[in-house]
């Protein structure tokens, strides 16, 4: 079992948790104390190996796959049989789906799992939801090993097969027609989330059972949010990252304070030194220093909010506004092929609400395709005069100009006006200057260009501007 725990620790590290050796040693001691009764064993590992609540879902998943699913797969293989999802269950559900006609509120029209799903959600019938998840999973047949890389797509396919989108649509209509209240509606959403998670779980279990350790490791590294590329995130992960950004922001803010503290000695403060010398009979034993002034950077953010870059821009805005007091001033602009200032939306405290308001109200898009040239032109003529020459201008964007004119002279004009221009590009460096990306055209006018594809890199670049 000790080896198993070591192995498990290694797997968690792969998933992005920092599990230290001493933590593993504690886990070993803890399990020795409470024994291997399932519940206790789980809590013993959890309280020694994870440091943050945010890491719990990942831990749970890995625990389930490693200690429950994986042994089952090895066991199965030894006996020359595969213990896949029991088939009799799914046969049962198909029958249920057929009989759904009867319970389908007199609508008639074919035996569709969608109706069943609507009913399950309305009743909060979790065993039915569970069966639906199995039905959805069955519909995929036997996915191949390489399909694991496209897990999200598989899930969508599975959802389509049980009429997920139709059911969601129906539920929304029922909600409007029957004035369903908030608490019921949130119960519905819980059911839907449960179903989706369940499908994902079934798929992951299938991969681990069929392909063993190897697949498990791939699942672990896919779950590593810090290294996950922004454009691959799904909604749940985006929420998760939002939470993490708030934490990251706090961490960065306190780090900055520490660095500043180390060099806090400024000039000698004569008045306080003399005053203090009275204590020691007029001899200035202790010198007093004037506090060093904090140099707070002024930040101007230009955020591309077209398509896949929007998520990244949103994260960046959230991060910067969370640590707003570390900057002298922050001004922010959103653009696609027009640009507008959105600083004012962020005056109230609720960053999330501000983000929504800014994204919905500001006029930043004309055609929906980014046009950096046009944007730089407008910015240089309309806003540049009001931008302080001391500020650091940060451009967030993929530099994909849709083959439009680059107007590099305007960027040059901008870069001469401000202290420095930084460019954060959310695409992998290998994709720069391919197709319509013109990073190299703009790069000479920037002090630095950073690749900023995931949470880990986002943290690094923010440190660079603090």
């Amino acid at each position, binding site marked *: 079992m000790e080896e198993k725990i070591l192995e498990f620790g290694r797997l968690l590290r792969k998933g992005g948790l920092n599990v230290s050796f001493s933590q593993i040693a504690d886990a070993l001691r803890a399990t020795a104390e409470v024994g291997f009764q399932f519940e206790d064993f789980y809590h*013993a590992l959890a*309280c*020694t190996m994870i440091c943050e609540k945010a890491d719990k879902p990942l831990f749970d998943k890995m625990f389930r796959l490693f200690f429950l699913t994986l042994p089952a797969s090895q066991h199965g293989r030894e006996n020359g049989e595969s213990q896949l999802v029991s088939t009799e269950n799914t046969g049962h559900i198909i029958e249920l789906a057929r009989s759904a006609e009867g319970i389908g509120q007199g609508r008639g029209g074919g035996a569709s799992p969608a109706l069943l799903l609507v009913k399950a959600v309305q009743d909060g019938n979790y065993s039915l939801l569970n069966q639906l998840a199995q039905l959805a999973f069955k519909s995929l047949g036997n996915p191949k090993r390489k399909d694991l890389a496209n897990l999200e797509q598989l899930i969508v396919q599975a959802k389509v097969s049980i009429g997920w989108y139709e059911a969601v649509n129906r539920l929304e209509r029922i909600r409007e027609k029957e004035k369903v209240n908030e*608490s019921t509606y949130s119960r519905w959403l819980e059911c839907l989330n449960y179903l989706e998670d369940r499908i994902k779980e079934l798929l992951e279990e299938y991969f681990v059972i069929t392909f063993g350790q190897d697949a498990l490791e791939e699942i672990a590294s896919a779950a590593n949010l810090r290294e996950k590329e922004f454009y691959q995130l799904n909604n749940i992960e985006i929420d998760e990252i939002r939470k993490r950004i708030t934490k990251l922001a706090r961490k960065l803010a306190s780090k900055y304070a520490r660095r500043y503290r180390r060099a806090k000695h400024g000039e000698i403060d004569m008045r306080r030194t003399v005053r203090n010398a009275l204590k020691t009979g007029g001899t200035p034993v202790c010198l007093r220093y004037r506090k060093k002034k904090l140099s707070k950077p002024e930040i101007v953010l230009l955020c591309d909010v077209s398509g896949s870059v929007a998520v990244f821009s949103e994260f960046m805005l959230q991060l910067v506004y969370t640590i707003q007091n570390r900057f002298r001033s922050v001004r922010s602009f959103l653009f696609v092929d027009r640009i507008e200032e959105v600083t004012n939306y962020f005056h109230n405290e609720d960053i999330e609400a501000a983000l929504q308001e800014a994204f919905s109200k500001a006029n930043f898009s004309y055609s929906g395709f980014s046009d950096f040239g046009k944007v730089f032109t407008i910015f240089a003529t309309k806003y540049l005069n009001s931008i302080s020459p001391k500020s650091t201008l940060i451009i967030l964007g993929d530099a994909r100009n849709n083959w439009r004119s680059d107007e590099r002279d305007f960027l040059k004009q901008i870069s001469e006006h401000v202290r420095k221009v930084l460019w954060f590009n959310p695409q992998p460096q290998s994709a720069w200057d391919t197709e319509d990306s013109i990073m190299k055209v703009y790069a000479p006018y920037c002090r630095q260009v950073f690749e900023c594809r995931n949470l880990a890199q986002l943290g690094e670049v923010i440190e660079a501007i603090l």
Partner: protein
Amino acid sequence: MFGSVEELQKKLAACDYLTDRHVATIVYLALKLQKPLLVEGPAGVGKTELAKVLAQATNSRLIRLQCYEGLDEAKALYEWNYQKQLLRLHVAQTQSKDWEEAKQDIFTPEFLLRRPLLEALSSEEPVVLLIDEVDKSDEEFESFLLEILSDYQVTIPELGTVRSNHIPVVVLTSNSSREFGDALKRRCIHLYLDYPTFERELDIIHLKIPGIKDCLAQQIVSFVQVLRKQRLKKAPSIAETIDWARSIMTLGSKVIDEEIVQGTLSILLKYQSDIDKVYNKVSSLLPEK
């Protein structure tokens, strides 16, 4: 101290502290492995209470160190009682001793002001040391805690090393208003206390307010549970549920309806913006009859 998880759970319950088994398991492990227990969670779920009850259940003295910004060693660990030392020197001057002798006189335990940490380490009897709201302290203090928490000893230059006779039970609590360094986290056993489940909260209400009608208690708890799922600045804690239940009892109502909730919402929610958010939705949040 405790032979098993069940025993611990029972002892805690005997002190009016109801916990789930997993909480008891984690506390039990912290005691057994002699490691500090870091309790995190939203305000008002009973983090501090846990430490107090633990002291009661183990028959030890509770020593509490409340953290705040600017807390330093002098306040947390020890300080020399300068005034007393000065007085002593004045007395000594008249007796004309040399410096070495005078030093022997003034740097003795007599002139030492024991602050909570030193007190916990040098205590003869078993103690529970509660370091409350560690997240409020500065980073320097956190790294200073590391030494104490890993070796349970501290060095006073003039006196030598103070080593604890009993390893104290250390409970740290945090509202996570600041991130801790990894070093501190790794030395601790982690316990995340969340809001209680429906059944657990119902039990607590019955325990704290004897004589409340079960159907009213159920309504109260289910409304609070729904409320916690809303996006609020500060969700109502257990303490607030109890206060609210008490005030509804005082008002003499048998059931909760929109009017009563709106009138007493400020007991549950402490931010005006939260109250505004919920005020008009109350009827849709109320449990169905």
